[in-house]
């Protein structure tokens, strides 16, 4: 092998992203064969993963790690054990078939390249998710699956239903993503590690267990569409069928199941875990199965059965017995094989016949025999007949519940009822469109192209081959996966032999019998269920709309409240905050105490003694006050401008009197220029001369201004009582001549010590100038 193991495993997750970037180009170059060409990427990954099977069985796990952000102890670490490998093989194998299928399904679509790119990117995210060992990497890939699935569901973005489905899926799964992040951070806080494989018993024993459990369940339940978050999955059926076949059967929605299985060793096994998973899983199973019977759209039926299957998987993980976990592993593969196949079949029917409504389809078997074979293979596996993988999955799940305690019986009843309904739906899907009298369809149906048939047939054959090779199935699939979930070795006892004395056989027969009954009474059940739904009035789906629109209204309201567009109020807020910031902390923390007369300073009469200002200094202060007063009371704008000049001049004089000739000159020049350009502009405006403020505004503004002014004065006085840290000034003074060869220290600071700052400042001056020029020129263009 040319590459090291670390790099190769990392490449599994990265290669699809690279392929995704190249997909549009590949599509343009290889037009009709884009699907065939791009399917090579997942196929290669599948082949590589197959080579890992032996080492994983031999060693239990293969791990790989490459540094990502070493400074924060973050590694892009991967961990391949039986569980990850089962998922990864399923994802890449089905992925290859789906890419192939998409090429034919969307043939001639203008955005086929983009679609294939999204699909491959999603696959990369999903592979990363199931292979990641680092919890932050897991979170990243988890969110990437949400984002890419958003793009895929909303692929047909000109339809509102499609957009809604995409947004709904994104919002719901992102709630879970936040949960995952919180959970990961909590686990890191508790254990100090980001690696999933390094976790032991610490979490279960800690006081934060409940919170961690809640966070992870939140993530898993939203991703895997458990009640009450189930409603996004049917709406996601707005996606093109290949997306549903891939994301909503074997991959994306199984992410939650994967997370639960992955966390079982260190999070599971408690009473709360079992109770919550079994209850929610069971409820989801029944709800989904009933939902499927209510539908007539083939795709919607499949979506609802997927919800049911996800519920079943969660329930099995919750039970946590060896048999239940083995059943879950088998069921995952069986379900992935038959559900992806069925979605592809439905896509083919839709593609060729032009409708998916089960009530108007019939007799297609003659026209589409190969499609029918694919449908039959998948449906038989879904019913769970012997010689299919579904059979073993069903047997295993019943096996663990034969202790005949009350709780076991309840779960058993739920399982049998759920499985029976699913079997009934499977019969409907297999029989209704293909057998019976031929019904007219919008398009005249004919056999689908090879690329669309390869998937269902191949997956169906796999299902049978696996079940015949019972021993290998146990060795290569059941044992590694179940051992990884339970964190201890398990043994396989799968057999093809049918034992009439075992209750298992009778449970299976009961399931099939009930399924047949459901199939015969499908129309009656549908009517009943629809009536019940109508009586219920609203669903979680409506609630989502209410919440979303509520959010929009709420944010619009908040925006209007904070961003009301009245400058005056903005400024009152700003200066109100300034006034509070200036005065409140000082008052509360006793900052003004230093100003009070003390024993050392003497009493008030000393403090209030006549300040030792010279006469001309008093003059300057007086000049400044006159200037300020005139600005405030100016009867017209010219006087105001002149008064502005007066206060500026007074400021310049203060600078001059207190040893700052540079500042004084600059201030003089600026003041003159200000007055000149103000006069230039103001004389051209016909402005209202007076300040019109209502009395209450006047009082409010005046109070604010006074508090700000007094606050600044007092602050400055307090500052002046302290000692000044003159180290920097002294350094500059001492080194100005010897090092910087300049006698004017202020200038030396500006152009030498702090030259970089000055460079920034002149750039700002320049920028302001350019903005002004732009404003002036725009007008000229408009008038010319």
């Amino acid at each position: 092998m040319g590459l090291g193991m670390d790099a190769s495993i990392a490449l599994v997750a990265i290669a699809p992203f690279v392929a995704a970037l190249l997909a549009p180009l590949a599509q343009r170059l290889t037009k009709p064969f884009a699907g065939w060409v791009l399917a090579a990427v997942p196929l290669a990954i599948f082949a590589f993963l197959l080579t890992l099977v032996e080492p994983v069985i031999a060693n239990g796990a293969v791990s790989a790690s490459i540094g990502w952000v070493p400074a924060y102890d973050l590694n892009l670490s991967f961990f391949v054990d039986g569980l990850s490998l089962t998922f990864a093989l399923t994802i890449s194998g089905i992925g290859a078939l789906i890419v192939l299928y998409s090429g034919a399904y969307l043939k001639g679509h203008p955005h086929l390249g983009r679609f294939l790119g999204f699909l491959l990117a999603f696959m990369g995210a999903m592979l990363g998710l199931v292979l990641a060992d680092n919890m932050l990497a897991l979170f990243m890939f988890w969110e990437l699956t949400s984002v890419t699935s958003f793009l895929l569901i909303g692929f047909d973005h000109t339809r509102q239903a499609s957009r809604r489905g995409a947004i709904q899926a994104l919002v719901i799964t992102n709630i879970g993503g936040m949960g995952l992040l919180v959970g990961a951070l909590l686990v890191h806080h508790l254990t100090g590690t980001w690696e999933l494989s390094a976790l032991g018993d610490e979490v279960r024993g800690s006081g934060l267990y409940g919170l961690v459990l809640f966070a992870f369940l939140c993530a898993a339940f939203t991703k895997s569409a458990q009640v009450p978050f189930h409603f996004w999955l049917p709406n996601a059926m707005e996606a093109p069928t290949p997306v549903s076949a891939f994301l909503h059967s074997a991959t994306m929605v199984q992410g939650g199941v994967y997370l639960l299985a992955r966390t079982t060793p260190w999070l599971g096994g408690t009473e709360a875990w079992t109770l919550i998973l079994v209850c929610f899983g069971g409820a989801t199973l029944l709800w989904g199965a009933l939902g499927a019977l209510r539908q007539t759209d083939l795709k919607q039926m499949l979506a609802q059965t997927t919800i049911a299957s996800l519920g079943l998987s969660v329930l099995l993980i919750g039970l946590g017995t060896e048999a239940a976990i083995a059943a879950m592993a088998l069921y995952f593969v069986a379900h992935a094989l038959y559900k992806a196949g069925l979605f592809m079949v439905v896509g083919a029917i839709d593609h060729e016949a032009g409708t998916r409504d089960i009530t108007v389809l019939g007799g297609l078997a003659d026209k589409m025999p190969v499609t029918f074979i694919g449908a039959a293979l998948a449906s038989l596996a879904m019913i769970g007949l012997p010689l299919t993988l579904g059979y073993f999955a069903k047997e295993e799940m019943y096996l663990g519940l034969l202790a005949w305690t009350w709780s076991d019986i309840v779960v058993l009843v739920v399982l049998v009822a759920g499985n029976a309904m699913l079997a009934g739906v499977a019969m409907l899907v297999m029989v209704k469109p293909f057998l019976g009298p031929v019904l007219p369809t919008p398009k005249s149906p004919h056999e689908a192209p090879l690329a669309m048939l390869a998937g269902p047939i191949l997956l169906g054959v796999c299902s049978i081959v696996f079940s015949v090779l019972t021993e290998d199935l146990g060795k290569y699939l059941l044992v590694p996966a179940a051992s990884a979930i339970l964190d201890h070795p398990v043994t396989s006892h799968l057999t093809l032999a049918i034992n009439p004395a075992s209750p298992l056989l009778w449970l299976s027969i009961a399931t099939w019998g009930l399924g047949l009954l459901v199939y015969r009474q499908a129309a009656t059940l549908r009517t009943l269920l629809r009536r019940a739904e109508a009586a219920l009035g609203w669903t979680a789906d409506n609630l989502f709309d209410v919440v979303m629109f509520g959010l929009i209204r709420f944010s619009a309201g908040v925006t209007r409240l904070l961003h009301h567009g009245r400058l005056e109020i903005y400024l009152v807020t700003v200066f109100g905050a300034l006034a509070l910031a200036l005065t409140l902390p000082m008052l509360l923390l006793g900052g003004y105490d230093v100003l009070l007369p003390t024993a050392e300073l003497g009493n008030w009469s000393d403090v209030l003694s006549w300040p030792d200002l010279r006469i001309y200094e008093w003059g300057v202060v007086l000049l400044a006050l006159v200037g300020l007063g005139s600005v405030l009371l100016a009867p017209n704008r010219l006087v105001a401008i002149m008064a502005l000049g007066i206060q500026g001049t007074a400021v310049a004089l203060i600078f001059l009197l207190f040893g700052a000739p540079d500042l004084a000159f600059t201030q003089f020049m600026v003041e003159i220029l200000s007055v000149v350009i103000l006069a230039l502009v103001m004389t051209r405006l016909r402005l209202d001369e007076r300040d019109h403020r209502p009395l209450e505004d006047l009082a409010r503004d005046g109070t604010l201004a006074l508090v700000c002014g007094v606050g600044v004065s007092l602050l400055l006085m307090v500052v002046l009582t302290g000692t000044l840290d003159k180290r920097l000034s002294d350094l500059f003074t001492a080194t100005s001549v010897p090092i910087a060869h300049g006698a004017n220290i202020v200038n030396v600071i500006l152009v030498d010590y702090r030259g970089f700052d000055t460079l920034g400042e002149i750039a700002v001056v320049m920028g302001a100038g350019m903005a002004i020029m732009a404003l002036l020129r725009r007008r000229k263009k408009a008038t010319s």
Partner: protein
Amino acid sequence: MNTIIFRTIAPLIVAIMLVFSVYVCLRGHNEPGGGFIGGLIAASAIAILGTAIGPAAARRALHIDPMNIAGFGVFMAAFSGLLSLFTGSPFMTSIWLYLNLGDTTVPLSTPMVFDIGVFLVVFGTIAAIALGLEGDGGERS
């Protein structure tokens, strides 16, 4: 403001102010002055010229667009800092060069180049603003 006395005397004032501004800028390292003040004085001179002979004529007298002068100033200031990189010192380390011209010594230095850059920026920008505002004259909304 456009009296004949003002128009006659303005070029004279402007000339004196411009020369003075350069003097203030160059002596700034050792005595009160520097690029900021010098630039403001020179810009005021241009503003006076603009008022006296009209902004268009003042622009012509300048030959170069004032914003270009400002841009050149930023470039010059940055360049003076870059010079130190050739001596292997950090950005903006000052370099001094004393030229002996007979009786006197003329100090040349990168801070001086930098200060001239500041001068040009302030001069260019503010002259451009002043001329721009004056040039808008007569145009009422």
